[in-house]
């Protein structure tokens, strides 16, 4: 299945845990330190350096680009570290997240409540994923190094739907079917 960003609630309603999805369009990167700053700005009522409405955040700290390349290897980082910040971002319009690994109960509830979606990319498949990134530029917090916020233009970024608005969780369901 192919989808384009920004995402609408209607787009998200059509996605179910287990779907293999190719994402195209603009997405933003943000990891631990960037999340902390974004949530602090929201709490202070200040303007954010990136739009949130309908947007997708990719949890990644890319490797530097070799000359002539758009970006270095860029696989997902473990998502649970962003859990404390995610419900606030969803409440403020964020629609999608790309990472790897399970999310907290609070995040899963916020995904259902605010009609968001959580995707996983293949952790470690960083060189492969980098090939679906066509443009990359730092748009905030360059001083954070690999944790700076980048705007990425992606074409057919391969992900799986993990948590959908219906309360499904691919990690739980997938493991249940193979647990002996």
């Amino acid at each position, binding site marked *: 299945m192919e989808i384009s960003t920004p995402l609408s609630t209607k787009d998200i309603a059509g996605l179910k845990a287990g779907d293999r999805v190719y994402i195209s369009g603009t997405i933003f990167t943000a990891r631990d330190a960037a999340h902390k700053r974004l949530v602090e700005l929201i709490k202070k009522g200040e303007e954010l350096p990136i739009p949130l409405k309908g947007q997708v955040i990719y949890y990644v700290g890319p490797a530097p680009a*070799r000359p002539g390349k758009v970006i270095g290897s860029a696989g997902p980082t*473990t998502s649970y570290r962003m859990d404390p910040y995610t419900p606030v971002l969803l409440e403020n319009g964020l629609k999608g997240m790309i990472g790897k*690994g399970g999310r907290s109960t609070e995040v899963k509830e916020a995904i259902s409540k605010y009609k968001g979606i959580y995707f996983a990319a293949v*952790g*470690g498949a960083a*060189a492969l994923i980098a090939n679906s990134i066509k443009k990359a530029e730092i748009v905030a917090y360059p001083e954070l*190094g690999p944790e700076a916020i980048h705007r990425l233009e992606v074409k057919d970024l391969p992900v799986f739907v993990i948590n959908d608005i219906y309360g499904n969780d691919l*990690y739980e369901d997938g493991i249940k079917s193979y647990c002996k």
Partner: protein
Amino acid sequence: MRQIDKKEIVSAVAQLVQEANYFLGDDMLKALHDGKREEESVIGQDIFAQLLENAGIAAGERVPVCQDTGVAVIFLEIGNEVYINGNIYNAVNEGVSKGYQDGYLRKSMVKSPIDRINTGDNTPAVIHTRIVPGDKLKIIAAPKGGGSENMSRLQMLKPADGIEGVKEVVINAVREAGANPCPPIIVGVGIGGNFEKAALMAKEALLRPVDDSSENPVIARLEQELLKDINKLGIGPQGLGGKKTALAVKIKEYPCHIASLPVAVNINCHAARHKEIVL
């Protein structure tokens, strides 16, 4: 005494950290091929295929297999007949700095765990030194990413907990890690010694080839039993369900105190990266 110049160490380390990040070992590639064939889950087979394709791209383009090019963990085995012309730790750190810069590797180290300002060159390395007989210097670079490292644990069991207690610690660590450490994983286990020795052994165990077994038949059997039990958890490649949660379990053991039974578990993702050189 044989003399080794500091410059040789700088350039060897710079080269090792790059190669370790670009090229998976043949043992690892074989394990991924075997995993793809043996995995029952269709999503799991697809993930193995993506990991193999990824390894091919990384090696071909000389880009890191994973964007998390890790803490530079460096093991040094220094022959007692070697004279190092210069400060060996400075040499290793200069090598790490050069290798991460020249190789377009991600710099992931922060100066203080509290203030968290990036050091900008991935130094300092975490360096483990052993003095061994001879006139050689062996350097092993084992870059370790945060995702799998964060899933590690150490438990001080009672001797009465025995082998069943050890198994429980390992299985629980893998179960609770779930999808986070990028399965299929390699599980390093250190049993015995004391608090810090167990942790170091768990990491050292990860340096062994994926397809070998412990030389101690009791430990070799425990490795096989643990692998079987882990692969019954159903976690599977990337935690999306499947037979292949782990590709191998590697155990190191050491004598310990009559009162103690330390067990450390260090989990490695499918990119079990390490390269070595002997100077």
